[in-house]
């Protein structure tokens, strides 16, 4: 199905490369109709060139200005609103940037946003998870323009080659002065990003300390070439940084294999990983809820099991 809408897709990037989350948003947008992209940032020529090669892309709008360097919503939203003068739908990936920018755009356009869609049923009807994914709602929008965020795990990634989009510069709307970037602590991580990792090893409260978390989870992840995740309890306790959190209010992941180590399986955690292809659970409590969703369960003490597993793989 391909509709007749002209869509504008937010390109998530790190200044040099297009992030994977963008590719799922492009696929969702292509169901609605023609796909145009917006690359906003500073010194983003390379990103724009790469974006133009994404399969199925028509036009790439590039706003290159210091005001967009950190994708501050206060500065970016007026730019999107301007471009929405000649687009029918704004589509953003459900990244923290997408979630920050899109609702502001929606309010400025007087539109009710459709958050975190799982499917496009028609050009005004979508499915989306509610109650931590314990229910799936089908919603129909009566707004003339649509503002949508897209759950990355629910759509295939568009191919990064094969497109021949036309790159077009757009004028900056300038700095609104309503926000200022102060700094960032972005973890340098040699491991695969959680949202695109094929295998994830996640640790829970049971790891007991940051040292033990690293001593047990990291070697297993390295053996498997896996990304590392964590439960909220493990993050709250400081065993792992906040960007490791998987769940309703953290990252949504769907790898080929998800290995939950010392995680009980609260609904808020399951919400973030239950679409994984294969779930492996290691827990000493044979009644832990995680075993209700696990394909392979091993009951026992993780402090014995994990080192043995790492050694034998």
């Amino acid at each position, binding site marked *: 199905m391909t509709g007749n809408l002209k869509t504008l897709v937010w390109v998530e990037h790190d200044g040099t490369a297009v992030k994977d989350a963008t590719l799922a948003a492009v696929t969702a947008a292509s169901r609605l109709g023609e796909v145009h992209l917006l690359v906003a940032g500073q010194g983003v020529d390379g990103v724009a060139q790469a974006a133009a090669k994404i399969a199925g892309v028509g036009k790439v709008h590039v706003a290159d200005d210091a005001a967009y360097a*950190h994708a*501050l*919503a*206060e500065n970016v939203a007026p730019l999107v609103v301007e471009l929405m003068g000649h687009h029918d739908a704004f589509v953003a990936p459900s990244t*923290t940037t997408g*979630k*920050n*920018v899109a*609702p*502001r755009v*929606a*309010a*400025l356009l007087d*539109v*009710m*946003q459709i*958050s975190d869609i799982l499917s496009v049923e028609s050009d005004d009807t979508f499915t989306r*998870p*509610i*109650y*931590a*994914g*314990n*229910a*799936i709602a*089908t919603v*129909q929008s009566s*707004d003339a323009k649509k503002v949508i965020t897209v759950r990355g795990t629910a759509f295939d990634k568009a191919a990064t080659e094969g497109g021949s989009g036309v790159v077009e510069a757009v004028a900056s709307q300038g700095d609104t002065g*309503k*926000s*200022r*970037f*102060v*700094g*960032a*602590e*972005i*973890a340098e991580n040699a491991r695969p990003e959680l*949202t695109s990792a094929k295998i994830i090893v996640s640790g829970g409260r049971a790891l007991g300390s940051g040292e033990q978390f690293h001593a047990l989870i990291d070697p297993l992840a390295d053996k*498997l070439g896996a990304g590392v995740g964590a439960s909220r309890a493990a993050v709250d306790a400081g065993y792992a*940084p*906040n*960007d490791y959190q998987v769940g309703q*209010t953290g*990252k949504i992941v769907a790898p080929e*294999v998800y290995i939950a180590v010392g995680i009980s399986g609260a*609904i*808020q955690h399951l919400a973030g990983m*239950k679409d994984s292809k294969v*779930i*492996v659970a290691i827990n000493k409590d*044979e009644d832990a809820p995680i*075993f*209700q969703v696990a394909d*392979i*369960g*091993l*009951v026992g003490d993780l402090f014995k099991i994990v080192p043995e597993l790492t050694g*034998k*793989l």
Partner: protein
Amino acid sequence: MKVLVPVKRVLDYNVKPRVKADGTGVDLANVKMSMNPFDEIAVEEAIRLKDKGVTEIVVVSIGEQKAQETLRTALAMGADRAILVTSEEKVEPLGVAKILAKIVEEEQPALVILGKQAIDDDNNQTGQMLAGLLGWGQGTFASKVELGDGTVTVTREVDGGLETDSFPLPAIVTTDLRLNEPRYASLPNIMKAKSKPMAQKTAADYGVDVTPRLKTLKVVEPGKRQAGIKVADVDELVTKLHAMGIAR
């Protein structure tokens, strides 16, 4: 300096949601309802800012009459005054943001602290929408909030780690899980909260059209996962993983 904190009454986070057999929604009859957990964090943060120049905390809830229980909880935690805005119809984030914008006009707070997300509809929109309507800055997904001279500096939980941004006041903040640990209201404070002021309004009082833009056509349960097998030991687990082509 005044702080406004919008709080929503939602299905308690410990209750497993059940989809109604007729596919119209999630069953909310006779189940425990509580304050949205992120809003408890918002109320707590406002209270902690009381040592740092905040003089009054006004809590607002939009919904049915029963939302006054949620407001009483916020008052018992330490908020000073409450506004209940009732509506027959369910109000979407856009409508909530429009009502809040009117209340902001009346109350002139320097800061509005909301939760990042209501755990029923999982929209994660209202704070950003309110900021857009007011033309204010938005410090979303906050894990640290510092009031400065005419500014607020917010450390935000973002995909790659943490980002710190600064916003001129007045501004919007939305809370993430690590901002603080909300207190429990003590019994004396619960008693005291009963006599704190609570204004009653309707959506119509603010002249806001809250007609929903999204129509829910149906609500279904997601596909269920079958529980799998248990393996006896690490060797068996390794065999299974190898059979799936992992770590070969």
